[in-house]
């Protein structure tokens, strides 16, 4: 009987260790992606870091209840989206407590370019295009922006976006269509 209890305890410990290792793998794999999504959504490095930490803390607390019906990334993305919503809601409610923001403006965000552009002219053109897309993204509604960033920055499928946002695929398509139209208008209008 005592030997059975000891074996059970060992089995539980082994299962907990395995879960912890699995979670550590998930963190290592998806943390940069979650951070990137939150950075693109908030344009604030400090805030994105804080929300990323909170996201993984929440995920760790609920890791046992994760059943793998969707991918871990989709599940994490859903947590991140909810945290972001909560943050803006709290911020609106408590505007007097959080007057300072570290969010960068569109021009500053457009400074970042990949090293692919060879000539100066190409770099300038790319920067101009990125700035225009940022301007369009800034003018989108929160939901449109989320859907747009998930599709065109994180390159997620419509199905994954729908699962993460809790919207139907049709609604996701509609939001995406409006967002792209807005970007198209911004790019066309500035030429």
């Amino acid at each position: 009987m005592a030997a059975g209890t000891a074996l059970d305890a060992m089995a539980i410990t082994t299962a907990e260790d395995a879960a912890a290792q699995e979670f550590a793998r998930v963190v290592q794999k998806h943390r940069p992606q979650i951070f990137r999504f939150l950075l693109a959504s908030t344009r604030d490095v400090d805030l994105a870091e804080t929300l990323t930490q909170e996201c993984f803390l929440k995920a760790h607390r609920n890791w046992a209840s994760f059943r793998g019906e969707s991918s871990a990334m989709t599940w994490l993305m859903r947590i991140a989206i909810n945290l972001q919503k909560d943050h803006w809601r709290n911020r609106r409610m408590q505007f007097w407590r959080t007057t300072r923001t570290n969010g960068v403006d569109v021009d500053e965000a457009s400074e970042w370019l990949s090293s692919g552009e060879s000539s100066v002219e190409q770099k300038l053109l790319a920067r101009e295009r990125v700035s225009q897309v940022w301007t369009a993204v800034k003018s989108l509604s929160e939901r449109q922006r989320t859907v747009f960033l998930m599709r065109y920055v994180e390159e997620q499928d419509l199905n994954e976006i729908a699962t993460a946002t809790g919207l139907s695929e049709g609604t996701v398509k509609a939001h995406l269509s409006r967002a792209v139209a807005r970007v198209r208008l911004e790019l066309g209008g500035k030429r």
Partner: protein
Amino acid sequence: MEISDKELETALQDFKNSIHAWSDAAYHRPRTLAAEVRHRSWRVALGWALGCFLVAGTVSGGIFERNHRLELARTAAAQRSADLQRQLHDQQAAKQTDEGLLADVDTDVSREVPSALEPLAQMMNDDETK
């Protein structure tokens, strides 16, 4: 002006690459937590100091204002009391003056007797003298 799908695709690709570059740089940047904490603690201390200063200013201002009003009320009450006393004094003085005047008038009137009664009045005066 309408843009082509190719241009849109290029712009979206640039946008994606830009965010990836920014995110990579931010993700791997050196952390400056200690300095940040120190800055925040200074900010908190400064906030508290300013808050305390404002509260102290408000409280002392209130006390000063209250004392000032009390002083004014006290001065006004003393002034009112002095005025009342002066008025009373004036009234009493006036009353005394009136009473004396009336007494004189009475005496004068009582002494002014018709000429037919002059001998009688004379006798009364003589009796009073005696």
